């Protein structure tokens, strides 16, 4: 097919879209199934007697309490309780874990492992990762693995094989839909991709790139590092950092754990209340349309997700900023992800968002919305 486009991701090259337009790939995520190459994720194997202890020192969730076969989404913080990164921790067995991350974390894990009996291996290059997402993901994967996946629950993992190639399957993803990620020795990743395409073709599988993924993750309310927040490791000023509470990741913070990086600062923050919240903000159609109609145009909607900072106002004063936004072709709503001052972040709060209409800055009404925007039953069922 014509028109592939590519981009960089962590020193690798991944598809932005496999066709001239990413539209069909986007719809595949919600209507049939989309297959993504997410191998550029950073991946670490942490094993040994103190593996759980190390991870519990680093991340905010309670890793020690996780069962074998469980996957945790989590963030991790610096000493000041500011988020460094977010990713998943999979408990492969009692003393063996896999951490996925958006940024390199080998050194950070090592620094935190002092005096612990633990082995850390960077498997970023060795391990390929494919994400199969969409309502038909399960039936396709069942055909490819010749196994029953109905018992594999949301955020759990299992081992299996595809065409004789051993794989780990986690019921995870970045789309907020029914979906799986398949972890495989990178040398064998291409045959696994081919097998999935073959099993999936009768079910409408479509290779998909980052443009489609970006729209889906906004509907799912999933934040993206370097876009929706900055790693405190890269922040040049304090204002660029965010705490887990400021990213509305409260549920990932296990304050009852005895010790983890940033715990003291986070407790103190909780006592005084976070300054910011990370929320959904929906752009009101009627005022958006009126702004365009006023100059004789039909409303223009973004055809791709945007990743710029857009001011949000309340009573003429800026109270926040949207960091990602997308028209949702599925929901027929214009969605953004935004940082809003905590006192204005209650769902239903009416704000204004800056829009550019024919070179001129205008404002449209916008409403604070709880996340996710899209949360289908099939995601967990």
């Amino acid at each position, binding site marked *: 097919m014509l028109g592939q486009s590519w981009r960089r991701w962590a020193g690798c090259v991944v598809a932005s879209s496999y066709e001239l337009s990413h539209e069909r790939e986007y719809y595949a995520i919600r209507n*049939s199934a989309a297959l993504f190459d997410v191998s550029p994720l950073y991946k670490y194997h942490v094993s040994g007697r103190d593996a759980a202890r190390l991870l519990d020192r680093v991340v905010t969730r309670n890793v020690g309490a996780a069962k074998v076969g469980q996957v945790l989404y989590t963030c991790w913080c610096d000493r000041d309780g500011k988020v460094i990164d977010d990713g998943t921790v999979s408990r492969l067995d009692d003393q063996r874990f896999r951490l996925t991350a958006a940024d390199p974390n080998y050194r950070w894990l090592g620094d935190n492992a002092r005096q612990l009996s633990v082995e850390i291996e960077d498997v970023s290059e060795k391990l390929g990762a494919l994400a199969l997402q969409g309502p038909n993901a399960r039936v396709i994967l069942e055909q490819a693995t010749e196994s029953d996946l109905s018992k594999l629950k949301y955020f759990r993992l299992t081992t299996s094989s595809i065409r004789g190639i051993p794989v780990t399957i986690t019921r995870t993803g970045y789309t907020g839909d029914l979906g799986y990620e398949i972890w495989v020795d990178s040398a064998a990743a291409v045959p696994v991709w081919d097998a999935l395409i073959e099993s999936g073709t009768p079910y409408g599988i479509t290779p998909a790139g980052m443009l489609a993924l970006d729209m889906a993750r906004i509907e799912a309310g999933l934040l993206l590092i370097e876009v929706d927040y900055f790693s405190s490791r890269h922040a040049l000023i304090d204002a660029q950092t965010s705490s887990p509470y400021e990213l509305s990741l409260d549920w990932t913070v296990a304050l009852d754990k005895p010790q983890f990086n940033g715990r003291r600062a986070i407790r103190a923050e909780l006592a005084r209340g976070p300054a910011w919240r990370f929320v959904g903000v929906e752009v009101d159609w009627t005022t958006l349309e009126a702004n365009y109609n006023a100059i*004789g145009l039909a409303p223009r909607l973004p055809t791709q997700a945007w990743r710029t900072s857009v001011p949000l106002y309340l009573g003429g004063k800026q109270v926040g900023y949207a960091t990602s936004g997308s028209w949702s072709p599925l929901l027929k709503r214009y969605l953004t992800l935004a940082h809003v001052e905590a006192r204005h972040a209650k769902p239903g709060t009416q704000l204004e968002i800056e829009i550019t209409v024919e070179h001129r800055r205008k404002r449209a009404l916008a409403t604070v919305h709880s996340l996710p925007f899209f949360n289908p039953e099939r995601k967990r069922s």
Partner: protein
Amino acid sequence: MTVHRYDAIVIGGGHNGLVNAAYLARAGKKVVVLERRHLVGGAAVTEEIFPGFKYSVFSYVVSLLRPEIIRDLDLPRHGLEILPLESTITPMPNGDYLGGWADHDITRREIYRHSKRDADAYDEYNKLMHHMAMAVKPLLAMVPPDPTSLAPSDLKGMLKFAGMFRSLSTRHFHALYKLMTMSAGDFLDEWYETDVLKATKSASGIIGTFMGPRTPGSAYVLLHHYMGEIDGAFRAWGFAKGGTGAISESIASAAREHGAEIRLNAAVSRIITKGGRAIGVALEDGDEFHAPVVVTSLDPKRSFLVLTEEKDLPADFVEDVKRYKIRGSSGKVNLALSELPDFTCLPGRGPHHRGAISISPTMEYVETAYDDAKYGNFSRQPYMDIVLPSMIDPDMAPPGKHVMSIFVQYAPSNITGGWDATKRDAFGDAVVDAVARFAPNFKSSILHRQVLTPADIESITGLTDGNIFQGELALHQLFFLRPAPGWAKFRTPLKGLYQCGAATHPGGGIMGAGGRLAALEILKDTSLPFAARVPR
């Protein structure tokens, strides 16, 4: 006999009836929808006629479903999912084809392959149509004003109407006038020289009408397509996941959530009147439903000549309804296929299978198809608009298998001697033969065939003469003349009786505009405040 009491009764659970009920219920009315069949949707239904294969039995694409309805009723939350249907190919007798693709420049290059002149005209033509569609589109959301009335609301409406034309430049106004009066063929002749391009474009203008591409007045419908394009990224145009029945189901779900009751297998036998007022309806089983508001979503012939007694209506109104043109002109063939059709012009599996396939190779072909119908026959070589829903939504057929939806024109409702099983089969054969000319593997891939003549469409859905638009979308039956002069505002000569189907402004297609506008008028009359937007 049981009598049930409601604030409003909606006759017919097609998409307009459901939209109407949803808006009335949303405003706090106690509403019941009475549907004759075992499922909602009317002509927008999905049925598993052959095991494992789901057919959008009648209506098969969604064109102009009003964005305000999608938003007001939050239809995506109720399951509405509109998938892109982005290309059209027209196979040609010489083994070539004409393709129209999602990407503007690729389409332009494709036209360039056929004619350098036409490739340039394409951009200009699009721009012109955009301007005209922008001017005309507000009509879709407007209650038609009566041009002969001096009532303030009518004068205001006429002013608004005039204002739309004022927004057009002189050149565009002239073009609009031509578009309203010319034939699609003649209008396109002014722009293009490529025959297959004109044939394909003009064919979209004759869908559902008893006109040929050379019939004056057929150009207007060319505009409808562009009205959908103005919605652009909003995309109210395409293929509904789960077939068109899923659209109806989503509206029904929204209606129920707002408190509307939907009764299936509830065939209305008559509208009950008392002292010039409609006061309810009686079902075939004898049960009665009483309400101060009765809304019919059926076509006017059925509403006023079948369900209502003539003596209850003014004679001139009855005459107008009798004169209302509602000839059926199209049929439908639904197929279950073991494999994709392999088109000679584009061999193998490809993106063209995800779009429309138009069997409209030449202007003469389409006009000849009309000639057959004019003289009381089905077209021996019909115009066809084909889609493969399973290529867009794989759930429509078992894995690896396919469903094909073929809209066929012409199949006149008044075929000489009337429709019967033999003619239906012959019609089905003509359709299959006409496709097989362009895809040799086609015939042997057919696992099941459902052929629907206008007579079948009428017997299943109740649409008089099987007319898919509840009356032709011809200029003399549009706007303030739809369905009858003086009765374009969703009201009827009977107090308390309203109409909301495709026979009302702005007409057919899965638009829902009639259902919505009628509800807003009813709420005005009953002076119930129109409920504020329901917060999500």
